[in-house]
């Protein structure tokens, strides 16, 4: 659901009017907000949390938090920045709960029972991205994801992450080095699921 540049301004206005409707009590209008942002929020959660099930649950909870708090939203930041801030805090809470200490990322590949009915190559596509993201710290991963999914500038990124723009820029430079170096000298993993009877 990416909007061409021309209509970007227009999209802002549409969202603004939907938000106002929801704020004035029309809860049903919120479905349009979910429809517009769900894929991006889902992808953000998916690559931060690592599993489809967790990403689905988190996406729903983020939108619910948004709806519960929408009355307190004012246009000091854009609505999407506000939503990503909720997403960011929600995912960080989940990660903290899940992994005590600093063992954030799981050092091996999971193959969920559910995945066995999906195409094997689909798994490989996302596995490839997970592989690369695995080399990054949590902060670096968030910066990359925000830049990739929302195409935010360093300034916007910094405001969501509550960091200085210069810090974000520095971290981005570091993650770029990590990824590029690792692409040349790196392992690669295939993992295929079984398709029963297929």
């Amino acid at each position: 659901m990416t909007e061409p540049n021309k209509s970007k301004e227009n999209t802002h206005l549409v969202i603004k009017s939907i938000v106002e409707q929801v704020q004035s009590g029309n809860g049903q209008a919120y479905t349009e907000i979910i429809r517009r942002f769900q894929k991006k929020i889902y992808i953000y959660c998916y690559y931060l949390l690592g599993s489809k099930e967790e990403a689905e649950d988190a996406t729903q909870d983020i939108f619910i938090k948004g709806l519960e708090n929408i009355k307190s939203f004012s246009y000091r930041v854009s609505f999407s920045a506000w939503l990503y801030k909720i997403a960011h805090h929600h995912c960080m809470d989940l990660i903290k709960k899940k992994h005590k200490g600093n063992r954030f990322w799981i050092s091996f590949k999971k193959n969920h029972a559910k995945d066995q009915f999906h195409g094997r190559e689909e798994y490989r596509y996302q596995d490839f991205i997970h592989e690369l993201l695995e080399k990054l710290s949590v902060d670096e991963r968030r910066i990359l994801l925000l830049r990739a999914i929302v195409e935010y500038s360093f300034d916007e990124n910094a405001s969501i992450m509550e960091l200085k723009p210069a810090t974000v820029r520095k971290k981005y430079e570091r993650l770029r080095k990590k990824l590029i170096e690792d692409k040349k000298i790196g392992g690669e993993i295939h993992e295929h699921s079984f398709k029963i009877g297929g």
Partner: protein
Amino acid sequence: MNTRLKSEDKELERLEKLIRETPVEVDLVNRTMSKYEDNCMSKQSASFKTHKKMRQRVIMMTVSAAILFGLIFVTSLISPTMAATIKQVPVLSSIFELAGDLGLKAADDKGLSTKLHTSATQDGFTLNVSEVVYDGTRVSIGMERLQTEGEFSKETLSDRISDIELFIDGNPINSFAPNDSNSIDVFMHPGKDKASVIVEFSDRSNQGGNSFPEQFDLTLATTISGIDNPLNINIPVKNKIEDYVTLQPKVSRQYENIHFTVEQIKLTPITTGITTKMVLTDNTTFTLPLTTMGIDVLDDQGRQLKLINGNGWTPSNGSTKVTDYRYIPFDSIPKTITIKPYIHLFDEKEMGAFQMDENNEPKIQYIPELEITLPINSQK
């Protein structure tokens, strides 16, 4: 400051695009809204929630029973000889028998696996290892949690496992790895149900690492999310396979800048292990679509083997790649083995997205110039 290569920026942009365009369909509108309404309601009435929980549990039990039944049925379709064995499947059937990996099923049927009942308990969570097999190519471990009720039963076991550390005769498995960056990965495959999982790993002896011993004590330190200390289980592992077929054909093909070699084929009753080597003769580095290149493996009847897992490694110069693939075994040793390398087709408009066929599977394209057929003269 701006000394970096333009191509490096492009690489990163492409990765960002890959992330942005992850092929998923997300439709959570109705689920989110009804979850929101549920939340509001449950605040008003606590009893409503417990009723709903009960109902979910009943539904889940019915569903898992149906899945188990389905598996037995489908497996019997794959192999007619299964019909007889199905009758013999005991009530507590083996994870290997039902997991869908025909190699592990063969191991179980032929008595090549070792049945165990070794468990560890922490904070009321009991993890049990019930079966292990090692054929010189892969070590596979059938693991299950023993609780059937309570909060633990809702999630799949693989979701609960947040880390597994492995030790061979007391040494971390990565002491067998060729170097720090080509580490030995632990795979988790689905077990027979939500409460079971197959943990699997292989040595990197085809990529410069050390072979595992023929017989060793394996320690699994499994971390379960929500439980502070790992659960430690020690099990004996032994390679019981006496007759493998190992071929080192070193047959090569060249197509454009790709030099492709089949280095080794190892057939056991449990796994077909294939090691290939790819060299880019113009010293370039691997980029899409070559980074996602794979192989299909067929016998003389055109029957294709299913891939279990594999791992590739690009040493420091970046233009060589050695890959170990592990497939299910052939029913019997075939007259020939054909290796068909393929690449994925990427969407021209959406960079990084696969082209999909009518079954919503990514489209592949074989590279016939690199195809290799090897005769097998049952040389034991």
